[in-house]
């Protein structure tokens, strides 16, 4: 790198071509994966390089021949009425719940919307289906996705204070490591063990 600006010669060609080619390769390489389908043969290879690869051998919900009930697979959580095939507990007539109004859940899970000092908005509004799937899920507690994926649907990373809470910028951290999902007795729904300011 020259330190005398007057002696610099135009280098448009080499740097430009190199960078442009690199960008194309990077984007191309990334998007080749778009069409990548997980199969039994490539599952182990993909899992070696990536987290979150769905296991094609994971058991899906099956019928237990002995009891006749639906049983969750290894990576699944399942809603009890669904497992018990008690569809009518939720589906009455032409009932169709939406993400904004899942008050039906309160008929069994009564009081969830007001059980903590600090409540999560969707819980207080009984919008359970924003975060939970009503039947079964590949995540714990019938979550629709990983906690970070769900939380950032509303709490976009740009809105989070990463200066005061550097963990917010760490995409490897799960939101539920420090926060509770429904509510708690500390501001910002912080878990008891999480660092943070009381009353703040």
């Amino acid at each position, binding site marked *: *790198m*020259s*330190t005398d*600006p*007057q002696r*610099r010669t*135009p*280098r*448009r060609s080499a*740097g*430009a071509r*190199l*960078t*442009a080619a*690199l*960008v*194309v390769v*990077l*984007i191309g*390489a*990334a*998007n080749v*994966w*778009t069409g*990548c389908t997980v199969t039994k043969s490539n599952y182990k290879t*993909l899992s070696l*390089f*990536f*987290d*979150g*690869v769905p296991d094609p051998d994971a058991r899906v919900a099956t019928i237990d021949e002995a009891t006749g009930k639906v049983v969750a697979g290894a990576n699944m959580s399942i809603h009890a009425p669904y497992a018990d095939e008690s569809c009518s507990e939720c589906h009455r007539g032409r009932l169709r719940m939406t993400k904004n109004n899942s008050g039906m859940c309160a008929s069994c899970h009564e009081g969830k919307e007001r059980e903590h000092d600090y409540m999560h908005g969707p819980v207080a509004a009984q919008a359970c289906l924003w975060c939970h799937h009503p039947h079964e899920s590949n995540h714990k507690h019938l979550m629709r996705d*990983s906690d970070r994926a769900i939380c950032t649907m509303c709490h976009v990373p740009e809105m989070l204070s990463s200066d005061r809470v*550097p963990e917010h910028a760490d*995409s*490897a951290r799960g939101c539920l490591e420090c926060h509770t999902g429904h509510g708690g007795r500390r501001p910002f729904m912080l878990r008891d063990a999480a*660092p943070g*300011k*009381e009353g703040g």
Partner: protein
Amino acid sequence: MTTPGPIRLIVLAGFAAACASAPAQQEADEGPVIVGETKSKWRAFELNRFGAALEFLGRSRRDSREQEGQPDLTDSETLMRELLELNGRAFIGHKNLVDLTATVKFGLEDRFLDSGTAQAEDHSSDFTTLFDINAHALGNSKVPLDVYARREQQFLERDFASSVTNTTTETGVMAAIQSITAPTTIKIFRNESTQDDQLGQFDFSQEQNTFFLHSTLNLADRHRLEVEYTFDDITERQGATFENAYQRHNLQLTDVYTFGDEKLSELRSYLRYYDQSGRFPLRLLRWDERLLLTHTRRLETRYNFSAERQTFADSDQDHFDASAHIKHRLFESLVSTGTVGTRRFEDSSDFTSTEWYVNGELEYTKKVPGGRLDVTVGASFNAQDNSERGSTIRVLDESQTFNDPFPIVISRPRVVPGSIEVTGATGFPIYQEGFHYTVQFFPDRVEIRIILGRGINDGDTLLIDYDVAPTPASTVDTTGLTASVRYTIAEGSLIGLSSYAIYRRQDHSVDSTDPTTLIFDDTSTFTYGLEYRRDGWRFKGEREHQESSFTPYEATRFEAAYDHQFSRGSTAGVDATYEMIEYSNPENTLEFARLSFRWNETLAHSTDALLRVDLRDEQDSLRGSSRGVDSSLTINWRKRQTTAYVTVRATLLEADTSEQTTQFLEVGFRREF
């Protein structure tokens, strides 16, 4: 200083609202009319709560400065204020019909100033009135109405100058139309702001009359149109020399159409018209289209287009921008992003600039044995083709933040010496070169160095105006590369420890008829370090090596921080940083250390204290050294209806040839009845 007008306005508006709602009240006898109540009697006026309080405020500040070869300076300022506060809540007709809340404070204020800097002494006494009055008219209307008037006062401290009293008076009416298809907010207000210093050297005032409207038209389930319009009539005055009276129209239409599964895709269209008269006339017309396509939960693309015309008093400027962006998430490990776009700029002097750019980035994260691995790789390319610019252009209000001890940098060549003006974030005050800051010109940039202790503090936002000289035709290619890797231990006794390395490179290629006038800095930076975060502790140590056409350097940085809550009412925190930068062109070593300590303690049931200490030490082998300490202690006490507080603050800033100190004391007392 009394302002009875707004109070009369409130009272009249309250009665007007009550009269307007009276027919509705008559219906109340026959059924539920008033929101929240079904059967209650109509009352012309009922006082719901009434209170009073006495307030005392005393402030005293003393600044002194010693400088070699100059006489010692001492400035002192004292303010005493006694206020009587009356506050209450009442309603007209019914508590849900017209709800009145009011707080009014009035009293006396005495100020004493003895300024060695201004070589003046002054004593002034004023009658002070502050108020916050609000009338909320609800009734059974779908148009709840708020009428308000408020007058607030703040004191802005300035070193070696009298403090500035910032007084804001605002009266207005706000209506929120409760409609499902077109919820609308309308606001009309008058705002008068004044900034007065005791000697009248930095007086500033602004009068503003505003009409504001915002409406959301829900055209269909997936389609809405937002309309926002603001009209301002503004008069600004600074001292006896500057006055600018102007009007502003600002209209923005936003059309949002969502589509696709779960409404995850959308098309947003913006149209904005802005027109400002006065000394700095500007007319702006802008059109934006932003399309977001969510192909799957893991793949999305965005397409943006904008066109803008700016018309100034003596020139026109056209801006065009188009870009496409793709983002793909592969499982939970890889996020790929890419952008390609073009920009074009034209102005009425036939100057044109066309730019093409492309960039891409891969962010990879993976759980690995013992921890987590994060890798980022990115590249960018930008090609700019500029025609000859035959005239000087003025850049206005470039926003920059002062980050002590580093200079503010204007990163462009051809800035005209003597054209730089620096002001505060609101355009006030106007800072003086040589007293508040110094300017140093480099081939590729300009550095503005802030002189500490003259009123500009660490973290302050500044607005900078400057001229850029004519430039020859040129093509400029810029390539950028970034790569980083971080390994974080997530198991065992070293959990929370991470090591990282970052490489950044930027190169320019310039082709011009006069290459000596267009000079850019090519840089290559390599940073590596260790970081540890656990249980409120944070440690960081890193080394940075930068190759550069103009400013090569080696830097070593250390950071440590700890925050701890001892009990519910007891917290403490400490931050310490040390940085050493060795510049090689010209040779210079900068060492900067800072220590910040905060302790908040509840001493008794009714008493708490906050202690804060900041230390800084700067050693610059070219520009000299300076050391400073800023400490303050605040004690708050409250028992039943009585509150009191005291704040003591002392600062010392010592440089090679000067020393300045500040002592500040504030005492406050409030008794409610």
